[in-house]
């Protein structure tokens, strides 16, 4: 298969970016999207025409959350329930023009080309996205019984890989689905109860402070989430946030 690629090139956070056009030829339909970019980079290096295209990637099996490209107007491209590394060229047609951009959101500044800085997500977790359980002294694991449906629902939320597609998909660049997934995961479990009110307040404040937009319930995030995290978690977050805002302040 042959493709024409329009790829966003930007030397660093402060430079002006622009699209550059490249051709790749004889690509196998079983090739992954990132392997196709590897082939392009091999050409660019071999011919010394340009610095190879920088893009984040690591596990290449859809779980580390490191890769994330905006392909033809969709985060992670035109397949459902996959990350960019699991997108295969068989999803395209021979001769296609493909537009490749980084995540576009103010809290995710471009580092170089298609690489963005997602450390804002780490900061939100640091604001309270955990259960304080200092090493040692935990009770026996089966001392805490958790109904299967609760554990399963917590796991559904915990499957978030922190890739940022939800933010990229959102017209407001809201991080609501990411935050809600963590709030939901921990608050569904009995271990997460003692800190639940503080957690939701602190994580939401941090999200606002870092410049993520508001959620207007458009649910583009749910449609594009590679792990298919559900919008119901956002409803749970809102309920908890309201509960702590109008309830007794525990801090």
């Amino acid at each position: 298969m042959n493709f024409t690629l329009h790829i966003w090139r930007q030397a660093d956070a402060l430079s002006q970016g622009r699209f550059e056009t490249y051709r790749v030829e004889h690509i196998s339909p079983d090739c992954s999207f990132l392997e196709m970019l590897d082939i392009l980079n091999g050409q660019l290096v071999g011919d010394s025409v340009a610095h190879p295209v920088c893009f984040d990637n690591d596990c290449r099996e859809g779980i580390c959350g490191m890769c994330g490209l905006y392909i033809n107007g969709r985060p992670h491209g035109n397949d459902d329930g996959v990350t960019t590394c699991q997108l295969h060229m068989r999803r395209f047609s021979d001769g296609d023009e493909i537009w490749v951009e980084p995540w576009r959101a103010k809290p995710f500044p471009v580092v170089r080309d298609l690489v963005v800085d997602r450390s804002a997500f780490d900061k939100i977790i640091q604001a309270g996205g955990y259960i304080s359980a200092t090493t040692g002294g935990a009770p026996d694991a089966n001392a805490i019984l958790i109904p299967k449906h609760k554990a399963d629902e917590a796991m559904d939320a915990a499957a978030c890989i922190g890739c940022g597609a939800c933010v990229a998909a959102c017209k407001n660049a809201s991080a609501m689905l990411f935050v809600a997934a963590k709030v939901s995961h921990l608050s569904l479990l009995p271990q997460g109860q003692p800190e639940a009110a503080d957690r939701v307040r602190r994580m939401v404040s941090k999200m606002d402070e870092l410049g993520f937009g508001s959620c207007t319930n458009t649910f583009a995030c749910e449609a594009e989430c590679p792990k298919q995290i559900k919008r119901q978690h956002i409803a749970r977050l809102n309920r908890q946030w309201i509960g702590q805002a109008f309830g007794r302040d525990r801090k």
Partner: protein
Amino acid sequence: MNLDSKIPEGPLSQKWTNYKTNQKLVNPANKRKLDIIVVGTGLAGSSAAASLGALGFHVDIFCLQDSPRRAHSIAAQGGINAAKNYQNDGDSVMRLFRDTVKGGDYRAREANVYRLAEVSGGIIDQCVAQGVPFARDYSGMLDNRSFGGAQVSRTFYARGQTGQQLLLGAYGALSREIARGTVTMHTRCEMMELVVEPDGQGVPRACGIIVRDLVTGALRRFAAHAVVVATGGYGNVYYLSTNAMNSNVSAAWACHRQGALFANPCYVQIHPTCIPVHGDYQSKLTLMSESLRNDGRIWVPRRKEDAEAIRAGRKGPGDIAEADRDYYLERRYPAFGNLVPRDVASRAAKERCDAGYGVGTGLAVYLDFRDAIRRLGRDVVEQKYGNLFQMYQKITDTDPYREPMMIYPAVHYTMGGLWVDYELQTTIPGLFAAGEANFSDHGANRLGASALMQGLADGYFVLPYTLQNYLADRIYAEKPRCDTPAFDAAEQRVRQKMERLLSVGKSADGHPVDYYHKALGKVMWEYCGMSRSEESLVEADRQVCELEADFHRHVIIPGTADEMNPELEKACHLADYFELARLIIADARQRKESCGGHFRVESQTADGETLRDDGHFMYVAAWEYQGAGHPEVMHTEPLHYEEIQIATRNYK
């Protein structure tokens, strides 16, 4: 060199208790004054940094990704072992210990393995307290599944994403310490060099590292009272492996160059169930969890004509009648069946394919869920393995609910690594190695679901004790500084290495880094992979030396060292892989026996099983670096078994 493993006195079951009772401690006020560097944010690194930070030490932790949550522990699928005996099926610390030593083909250190089994239960307690959503049954209690090499169900799991959930648990604990200010996180930073400096008494000690900021290219210095390397394994020396693209040996190799011995490099685990290779452009292989062998049955056609017809596309798996299917693991190993250890399952697959019974490209066998779907229903199978089936479907474009999966062995895990004593300290005082980066617990083959157990055991429950024992004496030392000649020299070495690579002039014979890495991987897989012989290893060494010379003369690297430059990073990694590859080959040559994942064709039984030679090879081989281009020197640590009855491994 005398390799003192520092195994504590007393009976096996009391050694760790005795150690903890008698070790030195650091009081809380002094802990604040002590700095520790942790490199790597996988299970071992994150759990160690979080636990050490909670104790009150100041920790600087480094990862090369954009967030600590990306470390490759996240990709572990199947589960984590622990001797909880929740299933009442006869499990115990002693049995987990014995299974692990036997699974490792009697090439692991007894005391370390016992401690691992001993702390395993506490790991599950700790993770549940952190909110790890392990699978549960309808009573609300924790569920278990079975893994290879065990006849009990002791594997805890969170769907097919156990590594992810455990890592996110450790990441949560780490994030809490970062917020509390005890741990400082440095993302997109790669450790380039270890700094070793003599203390007041002239004893050389690890006192810091040089890192490269991967965004700006700037080199930065960090000094500390102790350094922990938790940077994972070196499977990517084979290019195609189940490791992440950025997984590499360079941090561990920098330690090795500075004097830390490297143990058992030839022990490489080839995982039996991976999606087969399908093209030259391929960048990595994807694992299909061992847990699938709980319900999937592995087979190839019994008749060669059928295998040929399948390869030619004239027949499909559904056309092969039950009687014409060879469930070769069940046939050869009735006692363990599809749940034999990984090395055994991998060799059996290779044997069938080499004999002409392979399907697909010829290098694949079937992993079939037909019977499980009939027995349990599609819903149950989907609940247990849904994400794995989806992953398989997306990669191969075939539906594993209808057609059996095609799988083939691939490089997955490395049992070898930096030599450490009982305290997880390397041969350089003050330098510790944890998780896959050390060699200590898995002998010549690791059992499934034991890597997560070891990573977290080291980080949560071993290093917080043993590091304290080391640091108790360091409170009298001066605060480490990074403006010393040792730091200057280390930084200079890093600059020289990068400049040498960047100064290679462009020529018509030149290629990008990946070209040389792929070629190295092919040589290693062909001649030093699932089976090895004196002849193949000599050939491997010859080809690796040629390739290495070619790489250093012709590699094309764009850009400079003062910017984000992934090609330069890859070239630095590959330069180290070439040295490592030659060490793996040397180690495989000297070990003329077969054991675990190391199969020497000269040493096998009549029915093709591994044949150990305990009389000559019951030792750990620990190698000392002698400078670039010089053969390394081997030291040995004899293995003594007090508790274990040495036997031939038998899964029949």
